[in-house]
């Protein structure tokens, strides 16, 4: 039948077009699903180090923070500082922060780096870009819908929608309802 030929052509070509973005969404989707267990976008490295007894005056900008950073084995360049309370100081460095607690004499160094592949995938998946990307993502969603619908009619006969395909499609439809029934 002529319509099935066109259906299969559409299914094939939309499939080719969607392959790249589907991989992006798959990778990011799994990563973001587990956001409670880890940070999918940034790699955050924290370590503590003892510092010599200090007072707020010792860490007064512009010289104090740089001196402390050098003591911790870091480059002395810093962006700015902030005093959260009377006994601590936060120094903002290029890739993170250094929190100094005068009371305990301990510094917490936090280095933040964006995960190169996942960070980019999440940027697209979570639509940080907005603007034209919103339309692109909508177009991709419509294409996925078309892929699903045309996929139903690729085969005819026992393996098609009137045979095995009907059962598999039914399972796919029922699964979300089962979870809704369990969790809502």
């Amino acid at each position, binding site marked *: 039948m002529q319509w099935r030929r066109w259906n299969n052509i559409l299914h094939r070509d939309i499939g080719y077009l969607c392959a790249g973005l589907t991989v992006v969404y798959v990778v990011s989707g799994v990563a973001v699903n587990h956001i409670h267990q880890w940070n999918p976008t*940034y790699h955050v490295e924290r370590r503590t180090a003892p510092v010599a007894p200090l007072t707020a005056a010792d860490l007064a900008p512009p010289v104090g923070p740089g001196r402390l950073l050098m003591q911790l084995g870091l480059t002395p360049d810093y962006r700015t500082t902030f*005093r959260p309370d009377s006994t601590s100081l936060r120094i903002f*460095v290029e890739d993170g*922060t250094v929190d100094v607690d005068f009371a305990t004499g301990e510094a917490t160094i936090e280095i*933040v780096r964006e995960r190169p592949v996942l960070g980019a995938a999440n940027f697209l998946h*979570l639509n940080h870009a907005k603007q034209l990307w919103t339309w*692109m993502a909508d177009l991709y969603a419509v294409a996925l819908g078309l892929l699903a619908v045309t996929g139903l009619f690729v085969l005819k006969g026992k393996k098609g929608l009137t045979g095995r395909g009907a059962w598999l499609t039914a399972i796919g439809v029922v699964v979300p309802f089962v979870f809704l029934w369990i969790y809502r």
Partner: protein
Amino acid sequence: MRFLLTATILLAAAGCRPAETPGTVYGERPTLSDTTLVSTILTDPESYLDQRVLVAGTVVEVCEKRGCWLQLASDREFETMRVKVEDGVIIFPMTARGHQAVVEGVVEKVVLSADEAREQARMHAEEQGLPFDSTAAFEPTTTYQLRGIGALIAD
């Protein structure tokens, strides 16, 4: 096919490249021209309740996992103001910490029961990867924050 490829790349480049700004805009570009000091708002927050204000300061903390809030340093020592934005609508990057920002938003009051305060502290610890003392006692709290509409964060 070559035309299609070229057109796609040009279209993507045109749409994804943000306009030149002195910083990066998150959400709506701030429109107010006069800034209000964070310390002024926090001294008498009730008088600013539900008002749209523009505040400025250093970003000292950002929600690590969702980028759904940031903490802005006040002009007064040891003081910050929390800026909360709608999840997924505005996403602040962790790299904003230590950068200057101007934020426009509406001042709002957040009243929490002891249980809600505990839950918020637990969620905060989870988001920031910090330890949470489940045995700690919590009391009902009233805080004031900015419901963020838009921010311009310096690069």
